[in-house]
């Protein structure tokens, strides 16, 4: 054990203080990050268990494990919790909080108290939804009207909870934007910023400006159920499709709120383990902003069969193809970064490579759904389910797991068992593909989503998918146990185990209370690996 008694610069790791209030009242971005990390991981596991139950029910074509209503409730909870409690706050709130000040050389975010407030609002939202579980909604996470306005399950509370969570998301985004604008260390110019920061910035803009629209939409749904307002009720002159327009105005950008931070993570992991400068820094940086911007323009591609006008469908299909371009550019640049590198297949790097591979599949299958004629056939089938999970698990969750393994030593000051981590990765990679790849075929064959029972002709592929979910579940279980075991008895982590040049690795592990003894002066970007000619 090191002796901390040396006079001047006493190193107090931020994890030093104990006791529940030292957490719940802490305005330290690293502690708030951990609280988010614990919360979102908890909800990820809970919603994951729901997913396993859903898949178990789908093992056979008939209802034998749960009844259709229960099945519908389960997929509603699985979707709502995964989306609003795990993946939207997700990387942004946990790793964003932890990393943004460290990476830009700041002692904390711009508004530390507001940051803590955001977390409390998040907790409040979870509390409301917890109460809503007394009579859980069966609407699906999309809350489409008129069903959501008429079902006799409790839609009001769960949407109110989501509304509250939205404010947490908005305030976090606001905080990060101001932090990135105002708190950068001297010399940390925009073009020296780590790409995770660019990604976080783009995400924050989306959180700030897309979330209020879903807020008001859900509020309108609540007033529809409580006050008898009829904007979405055809009997009162309203339009159910309007709800979808409003909902997707947020929820499509929300997809990018979920995925862009993961893209940022990948852009950090790959150069470190390839020991190469990131290829096409500016292209990756600006494509994050580009994706964020275009994401506002494509929402109705979720609605090609919903009864929107053909003109609107055509415009949105065209714009949808545009968003594929910046995304493709990123994939090419990540791949090119590996060229002539010195590649170390650390578990974090394996997750990063899995991300590139799976996200490519997710992105390419998106083309099917963006093309008007093809989408007519594939919409609301398992093809969409598979595509969405390839982007969300293959993309975001792989990025999340990669981030967990990559920054684990920095955050907690300990190491996990690398061999076990690799085994877990293998399970997750195989399990994921076995679960979701067959669903592309199911979708093409016409198997609709959200079916509690299904025609027998789909049984073999559905069963295969269920078996895959068991492998995936096992992988996540092994990974969780491994990471928790590392916290308890892992080796002490060195300051910079991978030789990264980014600022967060230049402070001790775990970082001290206010990050830097002295605010650093930045003179170069953080990707200067390799030998300059």
């Amino acid at each position, binding site marked *: 054990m090191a002796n901390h008694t040396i006079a001047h610069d006493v190193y107090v790791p931020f994890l030093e203080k104990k006791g529940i209030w030292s957490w719940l009242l802490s305005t330290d971005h690293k502690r708030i990050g951990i609280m988010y990390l614990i919360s979102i991981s908890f909800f990820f596991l809970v919603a994951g268990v729901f997913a396993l139950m859903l898949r178990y029910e789908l093992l056979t074509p008939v209802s034998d494990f749960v009844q259709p209503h229960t099945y519908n409730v389960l997929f509603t909870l699985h979707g709502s919790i995964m989306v609003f409690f795990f993946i939207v706050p997700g990387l942004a709130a946990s790793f964003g909080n932890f990393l943004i000040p460290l990476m830009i050389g700041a002692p904390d975010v*711009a508004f*530390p*108290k507001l940051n803590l407030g955001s977390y409390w609002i998040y907790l409040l939202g979870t509390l409301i939804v917890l109460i809503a579980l007394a009579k859980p909604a069966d609407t699906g996470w999309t809350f489409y009207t008129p069903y959501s306005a008429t079902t006799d399950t409790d839609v009001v509370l769960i949407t109110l909870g989501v509304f509250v969570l939205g404010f947490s998301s908005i305030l976090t985004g606001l905080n990060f934007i101001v932090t990135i604008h105002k*708190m950068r260390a001297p010399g940390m110019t925009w073009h020296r910023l780590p790409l995770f920061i660019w990604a976080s910035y783009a995400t924050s803009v989306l959180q*700030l400006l897309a*979330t209020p629209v879903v807020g008001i939409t859900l509020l309108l749904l609540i007033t529809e159920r409580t006050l008898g307002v009829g904007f979405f009720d055809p009997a009162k002159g309203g339009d159910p499709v309007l709800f979808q327009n*409003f909902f997707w105005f947020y929820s499509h950008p929300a997809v990018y709120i979920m995925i862009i931070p993961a893209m940022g993570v990948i852009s950090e992991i790959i150069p470190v383990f390839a020991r190469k400068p990131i290829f096409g820094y500016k292209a990756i940086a600006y494509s994050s902003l580009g994706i964020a911007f275009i994401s506002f323009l494509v929402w109705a591609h979720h609605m090609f069969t919903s009864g929107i006008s053909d003109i609107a469908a055509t415009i949105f299909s065209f714009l949808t193809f545009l968003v594929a371009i910046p995304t493709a550019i990123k994939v090419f640049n990540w791949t090119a970064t590996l060229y002539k590198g010195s590649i170390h297949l650390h578990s974090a790097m394996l997750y990063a490579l899995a991300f590139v591979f799976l996200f490519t599949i997710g992105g390419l299958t998106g083309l099917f759904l963006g093309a008007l004629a093809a989408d007519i056939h594939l919409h609301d089938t398992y093809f969409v389910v598979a595509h969405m999970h390839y982007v969300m698990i293959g993309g975001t969750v792989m990025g999340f797991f990669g981030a967990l393994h990559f920054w684990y030593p920095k955050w907690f000051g300990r190491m996990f068992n690398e061999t076990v981590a690799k085994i877990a990765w293998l399970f997750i990679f195989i399990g994921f593909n076995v679960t979701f790849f067959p669903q592309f075929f199911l979708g093409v064959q016409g198997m609709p989503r959200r079916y509690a029972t299904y025609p027998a002709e789909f049984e073999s592929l559905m069963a295969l998918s269920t078996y895959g979910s068991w492998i995936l579940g096992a992988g996540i279980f092994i990974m969780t146990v491994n990471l928790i075991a590392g916290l308890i008895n892992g080796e002490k982590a060195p300051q910079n185990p991978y030789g990264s040049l980014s600022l967060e690795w230049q402070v001790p592990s775990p970082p001290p209370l206010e990050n830097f003894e002295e605010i650093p002066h930045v003179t170069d970007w953080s990707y200067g690996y390799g030998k300059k000619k």
Partner: protein
Amino acid sequence: MGDASVEHSHGHHMDPAVEYSSSKLGMWLFLGTEILLFGGLFAAYAIFRAKYPEMFFEQHVELNKKMGAVNTCILIFSSLTMAMGVSAIQRGKQKATAILLLITILCGLGFGVVKYFEYSAKFHHHIYPDTSIFFSLYFLMTGLHMLHVFIGLAILGVLFALTIKGKFTAKYNTPVEVGGLYWHLVDLIWIYLFPLLYLIG
């Protein structure tokens, strides 16, 4: 704010100039969010106004134009006193600031009182949010706006109390200016609500 139980406050480490510009930028960002929160209602208004012009025309006459106009004047005046209050504190005039803030608060309350009479007149005539699409819009838009008036009043109340306590000076007055921005937004939204609902319906 002013949560004393927070273990270690980073705020003190921040350069005041950075803190000032950060707070202002933060508030502007929040106003952007607010605009899009109202945005859903504005979009709904646009669609249903275009779909049912007759309904909007026939029903908007039920609204009391005079009361709406009075409230518009009240809010614009409160914006004036708010802006003057910010200038006053930037010059270090604490007393003038307190008085101006108080007038702003009274205007806000006055707005609330007028709105109260308007709402009760509507209820008296059995007009409720579920009466028609137009009145749904009327109640939701003005209701959400009213909620913002109340939040604004709460902020102004805190600012007023702190001004009296002498917390703000020519050097440190960020909260007054930032709070003022919020109050102006309340005015800004009303500037649109008034003609949309009362005048052109």
